[in-house]
């Protein structure tokens, strides 16, 4: 897993540090009318023109960071922050030392931005999961309980429709119906900017529902399949022949076994939710983690983009790990030996 994380961050590092990106960085940081030589020397003094593995090692914090003297005789380098003398600043500064770099767009340390925005997105995700998981399980169980019935068909159609609706489509439709002046319902707000301070029903419903809908359909279909499979099992028939009522069969016998598969699916949904978060935060102008990703990528903010990628890669890998462990824990038939 660590190897995967290293490889992924290296790829991101390499892609963000390609020469055209650096050239753009130099021009936005220095002067837009710089000549090519000026760009090269600007990059040279800041150590951007070293080989990629060396830069990567510096960024990780396993190699002392690059230092140079600029035209005014000051020592400059990645570790030397404004206001601190060169002698006092550490020679190693990278992810391992807890230094994430300096964002050129927000003019703040990357670590601060990422933690702040991650908190905001965490709030969003909490509500999404709170809405998504129970609804998806309920829909799946109701549909899988009696395969082929009208309930099943209606709910399955609903689930298929939601999986076929990407967030940018459902978001647009929801905004159009519930918040535009053209339809006139105006129940909710079409922007979630105010939800960053105080979450209210009015400003947070639409973004939460938009993300939840897309993930929900998939989880519901998996739950339905798993429930339908369990309902045809031998022990259910035995219980039925014993005369146990249908409600009791579902609640006591089927439910627990049917919920093993959806757990894995829910955990593996996290990477997709991350995707949805980016779209929804852009659409509803909620300045969370996904919004930062778009800003960083759109404005060529290399260190911020790296920070964001590290976090998202870690989120993906950790959820994969949890889903593996949880599956083993939930399913007694599989054991790690």
């Amino acid at each position, binding site marked *: 897993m660590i190897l*995967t994380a290293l*490889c*992924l961050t290296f*790829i*991101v590092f390499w*892609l*963000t540090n*390609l*020469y*055209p*990106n650096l*050239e*753009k960085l130099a021009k936005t940081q220095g002067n837009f009318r710089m000549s090519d030589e000026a760009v090269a020397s600007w990059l040279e003094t800041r150590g951007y023109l070293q080989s990629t593995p060396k830069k990567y090692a510096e960024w990780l914090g396993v190699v002392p960071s690059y230092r140079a003297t600029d035209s005014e005789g000051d020592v400059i380098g990645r570790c030397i922050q404004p206001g601190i003398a060169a002698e006092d600043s550490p020679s190693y500064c990278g992810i391992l030392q807890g230094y994430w770099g300096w964002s050129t767009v927000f003019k703040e340390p990357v670590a601060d931005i990422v933690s702040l925005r991650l908190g905001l997105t965490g709030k969003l995700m909490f509500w999404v999961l709170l809405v998504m998981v129970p609804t998806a399980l309920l829909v799946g169980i*109701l549909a899988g309980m*009696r395969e082929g*019935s*009208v*309930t099943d068909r*209606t709910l399955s159609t609903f689930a*298929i*429709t939601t*999986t*076929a*609706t*990407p967030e*940018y*489509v459902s978001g*647009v*439709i929801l*905004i*159009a119906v519930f*918040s*535009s*002046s*053209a*339809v006139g319902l105006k129940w909710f707000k*079409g922007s979630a900017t105010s939800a960053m301070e105080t979450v209210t029903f009015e400003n947070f419903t639409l973004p939460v529902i938009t993300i939840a809908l897309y993930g929900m359909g998939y989880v519901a279909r998996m739950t339905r399949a798993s429930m339908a499979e369990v309902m045809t099992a031998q022990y259910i028939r035995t219980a039925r022949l014993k005369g146990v009522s*249908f409600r009791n069969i579902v609640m006591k016998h089927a439910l627990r076994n049917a919920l093993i598969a959806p757990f894995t699916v829910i955990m593996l949904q996290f*990477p997709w939710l*991350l*995707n949805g978060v*980016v*779209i929804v935060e*852009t*659409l509803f102008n909620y300045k969370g983690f*996904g919004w930062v*990703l*778009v800003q960083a*990528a*759109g404005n*060529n903010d290399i260190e911020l*983009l790296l920070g*964001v*990628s590290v976090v*998202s*890669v870690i989120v*993906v*890998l950790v959820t*994969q790990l949890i889903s593996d462990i949880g599956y083993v824990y939930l399913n007694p038939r599989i054991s790690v030996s």
Partner: protein
Amino acid sequence: MEPLTWTGSLDFLNPIFIALIFICAALVAAYMVASVFAPEAQTTVNPDGTLSVSPSLLTLVTSALKYGFLAIITVLLAYLIGGMFLGLNAGIIGAMSQQFVPVWISLVVLFVLSITYKRRLGLYGKLFDSTVGMIGFALVMFWVFTGLFGAFDMIVTHDALTQVSGMKNKVPGTPMRGADEGDFPYYLLGGDNLARDVFSRMVKGCLIVVLIAPLATLFAFMVGITLGLPAGYYGGRLDTILSFTANLILAFPVILLFYLLVTPEIRATGLPQYMASILFIFPLVFLTVLLNSRFYTQPGFRTPLLIAVLGMGGWIYLSLISEVGSKVHVIPGFADLFDLDGGILTVFVSVVFVNSPTVFRIVRGLTMDIKTRDYVAAAQTRGEGAWYIMLWEILPNARGPLIVDFCLRIGYATILLGTLGFFGLGLEPESPNWGNTINEGRKLLSIYLHPAIVPALSLLSLVLGLNLLADGLREESLKD
């Protein structure tokens, strides 16, 4: 001229339609509540040994629902068929229906032919046994035909890029200001914020989607199959390396990958073109190995065939990746068959790149399952080559799940294309593709709905159609 209403002279159908929808919705809700509480149908054994089911509330509701849905479909058809003949008199829907006449004709012909010969058409024919599959297929083919006819300017009412003064953000059905004799007199679905016709842009945008999404998926499948078969068949170190790479790509959040690959700066480095040169070689390899392993024993037939296929494929491959004046410039301009716009190539490559690892994993899993079967062992004993076994013994037996996944994956590719458009990546801003149009329309969404809603609903129905089609196919392929 008066602005058009939605249904025009077919207005009398509206109350019926709305009432039917409400009745059906109420019935479904009633059924769901009832199915939890109401007793089940009682089965009694008659003295003569037959079984009879006493009619319960639930069965009654079920049959009522069936007729309700039939009635809704009838009314919908009445709107469309009425519109086909009445045209502008039947309002916006009628006029659109008339514009779509070539599509309706092709759909009817296709369905009549397919249903007549369905027993001879294999899995495709069996699709017409399942209602869900048929609905999905109809939706998909509707957009495919729309894209095709739209490419020949048959359905569109106006040029997709022309701006007409005075038509900015006009609501659907607005008469066109200063329309000449030959012009279509209305903006059927209104104008967008640059005063272009939303309806024509939707039709034009359809072509981009129905062209790129299936092609990109096809390429992703070629890559996935060419790598997944040996990984599953041989296992060992090859499998470890390839699986690791696949997992690496899969662990990337898709949007991050797009932002890293599709920016103009990255395009300047030629990276997408290098990736294209690697990814696009897989279909060539696939075809070559496929034919070579089959006709290996008949060199007289194989050699000319391979030369022809490789020659044509190689030429197409080279003209695809090489472009005059860019980083990859292999063949001179006159030999270049077609010039792909750099944006489209980049979008194409990134969609293929994102999709192929998943295909790889599916193919690998299927191969590992199938290689333990007896017929594979029989082929091995016969002394067949490894690639023959993989491509002509294992692959055909893995086709069921692969075809289903192919349909789902086209839908996913469509969503990805839309995502790219939504973030303004890849294609040029005035391109009528649905993602870009949604992105532009959403900025004024709280005042003017139609520029964003129209492409959003189109994308939704296409992807829904593909999902239903996949569902129908899965159901039918499980029946054997």
